[in-house]
């Protein structure tokens, strides 16, 4: 591609990009000054609460809200689902009330008279033979000649059952919002990953012009893919607010958050893999199934990453009454990875091959990123001390505590989304820029300021950034690892455009032309003549009375972004074979994502992913009760998350420099959370000599696998 004025500065000419900058909103968050939606209490605010279905599948046969309407403090009652509706999961919302206090709102819910006709539900799917007509068998997909690959008498074949259950998103700040009307203008404070996107959703849902809707989200306490929608409770808060004539806060309680607002689909699979004796992969067969609620679930990309030439696979989507699926960091990838990389690990063990050597042997099947994977294996092995600690499966130390290492790899896209940036440079030197994007906690504010500072030659403290409000130019939803590419490229283009205007205004004073100028170190100066310079403020004074205003967007010209990343992770665990307890010694993550703007927040993103990964590998499961159809652990007591004492040492290495930087900026949110399940499961298998079939790797399953292994 021909050079463009919008390219990134090359290595050696960067002042901020590629350095380590602490997140700019860290102090506000750690001191409590940062106000999340849940923290806000506008004057006159009412509390909204919703009556939830106790049944997983039931028809509403009678509903009377008259007593609730006349309860003390109740200002509005809204029937969400009326008589005759069939409820499809426990926790589904039926009636909402708004009252002066939370207590009054709860009292009003208790005064609602409702009757249901319960219907037979299905809430579990691990045993496919029990799902009856609720399973929808997809078409078989074939590639190459799988039958030949598996019937080859020389083939080494490994067969196994693998699986990942439904887990929840478990956002620390629950879903919900505060809606307030000023005449026909609706203002919504929402806990959302899509400030701009919610405007259209509220407008459409309430049948009002988008120009009358404003959405604000300065801070969000976790989304992980579950907060792209205005959601039913969003519409309800707006309706309650309209009816009551006051702001209404409607945010989910913890139990509802777990029951209805987060669900990563499950995947289970019976897998057969074939290879030649030297370890070259030849065939893949899988029968997989999974659920993501009533709508079933998407088909996971099996086999994951590895392009095995001969394949036969078939997937069954199971419809269950467990609450609807939502995108969870790297939708379908963690499940596909956990199944593929464990099945391949079992095959490598059967071949008596070191799994890293096995992947190297099959490097030709790893696609465009294969060379990067090979570099990442080398780096990962070094950081994990693979040569020192890895041993053939089950051939570890004597004694009840067994140590093991496991490896996995993953990929993701991460191309930047569409968005618009606007920047003003004032004659007094002040710089302000804005976009209706949001900072999920990933460091979006920080990297936008770094790009602006890099481009204008200013420290980030000299620049003001406004985001989190739909009154600013349109941003994209923060999903699919698309934010960093979008906001960084739009900011870069906008800042370059603004600077061009400033150069034009300043050039005569420096006796140069605009294209001879550069902005470096707080100065506007003539390239190659450092003596001919004006400090930033004096330069801006040349603007006279008019501020510069510039706006640009992504997509646009210049090789600023691309997509397609790879990563390798290695888990190091110890397993207490008497109790089945798995302890994390270490997780190593080696990750590429093109040009890294802020090494520190990028590493932080990977740390977060590893902690989340340890959680779903060892602890997390949405546990449904067959008889009652309800979730048994809609809390943070038995829905277990990893704590600091559970994660072990985390070692993160970002691949940067030649071969990576010139690819431009690529997103990072999803990829590092994909591999932990497979890597940790493989480490446990390496430690104890047998496979624990499904995540999470709980003591009961570890002990059962050991017992089965001993009797086999």
């Amino acid at each position, binding site marked *: 591609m021909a050079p463009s004025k919008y390219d990134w500065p090359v290595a050696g000419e960067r002042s901020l990009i590629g350095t380590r900058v602490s997140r700019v909103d860290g102090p506000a968050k750690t001191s409590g000054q940062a106000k999340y939606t849940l923290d806000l209490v506008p004057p006159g605010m009412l509390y909204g609460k919703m009556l939830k279905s106790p049944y997983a599948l039931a028809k509403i046969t009678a509903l009377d809200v008259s007593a609730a309407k006349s309860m003390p403090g109740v200002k509005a009652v809204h029937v969400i689902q009326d008589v005759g509706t069939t409820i499809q999961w426990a926790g589904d919302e039926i009636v909402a009330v708004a009252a002066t206090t939370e207590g009054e709102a709860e009292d009003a819910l208790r005064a609602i008279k409702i009757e249901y006709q319960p219907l037979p539900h299905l809430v579990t799917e691990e045993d496919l033979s029990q799902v009856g007509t609720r399973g929808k068998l997809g078409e078989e997909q074939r590639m190459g000649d799988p039958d030949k690959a598996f019937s080859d008498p020389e083939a080494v074949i490994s067969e196994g059952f693998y699986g990942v259950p439904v887990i929840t998103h478990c956002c620390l700040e629950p879903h919900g919002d505060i809606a307030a009307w000023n005449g026909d203008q609706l203002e919504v404070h929402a806990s959302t990953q899509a400030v701009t996107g919610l405007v259209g959703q509220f407008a459409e849902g309430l049948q009002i012009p988008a120009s009358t809707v404003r959405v604000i989200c300065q801070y969000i306490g976790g989304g992980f893919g579950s907060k792209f929608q205005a959601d039913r409770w969003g519409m309800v808060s707006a309706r309650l607010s309209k009816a009551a004539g006051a702001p209404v806060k409607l945010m989910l309680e913890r139990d509802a958050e777990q029951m209805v607002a987060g669900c990563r689909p499950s995947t289970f699979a019976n897998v057969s893999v074939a290879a030649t004796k030297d370890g070259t992969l030849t065939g893949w067969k899988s029968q997989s199934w999974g659920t993501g609620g009533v709508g079933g679930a998407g088909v996971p990309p099996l086999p994951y990453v590895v392009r095995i030439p001969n394949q036969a696979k078939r997937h069954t989507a199971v419809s269950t009454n467990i609450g609807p699926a939502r995108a969870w960091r790297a939708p379908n990838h963690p499940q596909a990875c956990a199944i593929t990389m464990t099945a391949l690990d079992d095959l490598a063990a059967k071949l008596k091959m070191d799994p890293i050597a096995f992947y190297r042997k099959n490097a030709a099947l790893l696609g465009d990123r294969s060379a990067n994977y090979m570099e990442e294996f080398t780096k990962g092995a070094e950081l994990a001390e693979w040569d020192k600690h890895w041993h053939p499966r089950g051939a570890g130390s004597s004694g009840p505590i067994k140590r093991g290492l496991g490896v996995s790899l993953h990929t993701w896209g991460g191309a930047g989304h569409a968005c618009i940036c606007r920047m003003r440079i004032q004659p007094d030197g002040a710089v302000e820029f804005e976009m209706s994007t949001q900072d999920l906690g990933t460091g979006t504010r920080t990297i936008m300021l770094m790009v602006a500072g890099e481009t204008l030659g200013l420290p980030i403290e000299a620049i003001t950034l406004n985001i989190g409000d739909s009154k600013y130019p349109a941003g994209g939803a923060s999903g699919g690892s698309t934010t960093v590419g979008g906001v960084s490229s739009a900011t870069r283009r906008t800042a370059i455009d603004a600077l061009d205007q400033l150069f034009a205004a300043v050039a005569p004073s420096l006796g140069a032309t605009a294209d001879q100028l550069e902005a470096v170190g707080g100065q506007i100066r003539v390239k190659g003549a450092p003596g001919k310079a004006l400090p930033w403020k004096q330069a801006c004074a040349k603007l006279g009375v008019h501020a510069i205003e510039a706006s640009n967007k992504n997509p646009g010209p210049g090789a600023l972004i691309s997509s397609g990343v790879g990563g390798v992770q290695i888990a190091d665990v110890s397993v207490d074979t008497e109790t089945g307890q798995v*302890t994390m010694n270490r997780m190593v993550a080696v990750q590429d994502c093109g040009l890294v703007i802020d090494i520190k927040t990028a590493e932080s993103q990977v740390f977060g992913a590893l902690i989340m990964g340890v959680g779903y590998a060892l602890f997390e499961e949405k546990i449904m009760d067959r*008889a009652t159809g309800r979730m048994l652990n809609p809390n943070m*007591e038995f829905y277990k998350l990893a704590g600091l004492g559970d994660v072990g040492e985390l070692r993160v290495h970002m691949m940067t420099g030649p071969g990576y930087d010139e690819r431009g900026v690529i997103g990072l949110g999803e990829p590092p959370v994909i591999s932990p399940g497979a890597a940790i499961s493989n480490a446990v298998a390496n430690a104890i000599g047998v496979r624990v079939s499904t995540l999470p790797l*709980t003591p*009961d399953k570890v002990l059962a696998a050991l017992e089965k292994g001993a009797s086999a």
Partner: protein
Amino acid sequence: MQAFDYARPHSLAEALKLLSTDRDAAVVLAGGTDLLSLMKDNVIAPKRLVSLKSIEELHRVEHNAHGLRLGALVTLDTLSTHPVIAQHYPGLAEAALGVSSPQIRNMGTVGGDLCQRPRCWYFRGGYGLLALDQGKALVPDGDNRYHAILGNHGPAYFVNPSSLAPILMALDAKVRVQGPKTSREVPVAEFFRTPTSATEYENVVAANEIVTEVLIPAPAAGSHQAVYEVRQKEALDWPLAAAAVHVHLAGNKVTTARIVLGHVAPTPWRAEAAEQMLVGKAVNEDVATAVGRAAVMGASPLSRNAYKVQLARVAVKRALLRATGQLAVPKA
């Protein structure tokens, strides 16, 4: 949570007057770490809370040659840090330290630990202590991975959640229960009971009574004690199985033994056969393993919790090795 009255009396007599024989009318509030969640989940909805915080005598720790007297409001943090307790009742200090988090240990109390309600998810979900849905028991065919493996022939299947009860029982402690007129001392072994009907409670404290103190006799010379909990997570997690061991040694031979399991039955579970097996023996790995096996004799696991039998065995073995200084806790 439903609205309630809050009372904070300054004397035990005053507190007792504020209670009633009806559990729905009034309940006692100590640290509140369990009570608050029970109320928020609408498992209980008392009309009045009677806080014991301002009753000074309930905060006292007294010790002399005869033993230790712990006011019901002594915190778990105090238990885990008190030098006298660490020296003479190390098993108790260990058990207190095992309780989930510093925050809980700062608020949680001795009386509250004993009187907290079971964590059974059907109970917490509104199906009652016996987990009944329209008369049908939910646990046997349901998800019973965390339920009882001993004393579980119905109708109760929950496990006793107390962290202190096993070691207190092993130390032959008694609980003082004060009623409106009289007080009584109840051995910890008799403090808990397994309900046989939906109207029965899991301990002997009536609605109008208050646990005021725990009395622990001073251990004789040669006392060795320890607890061992098997938990999945490092912190903020309930034990899957736990054991408390208290033995006296003469030379290297066991003269008396108390072995009590926690989190395996509706009450703390004393393993008498295992105790008898241990007396007269020197503790080593083989003996500890055999005693662990004996401790779970009669276990009848439910559909999903057979693994807990193994965990209980290991907990006993490791507690015993630890009590006798033979186990630097294997840190996985």
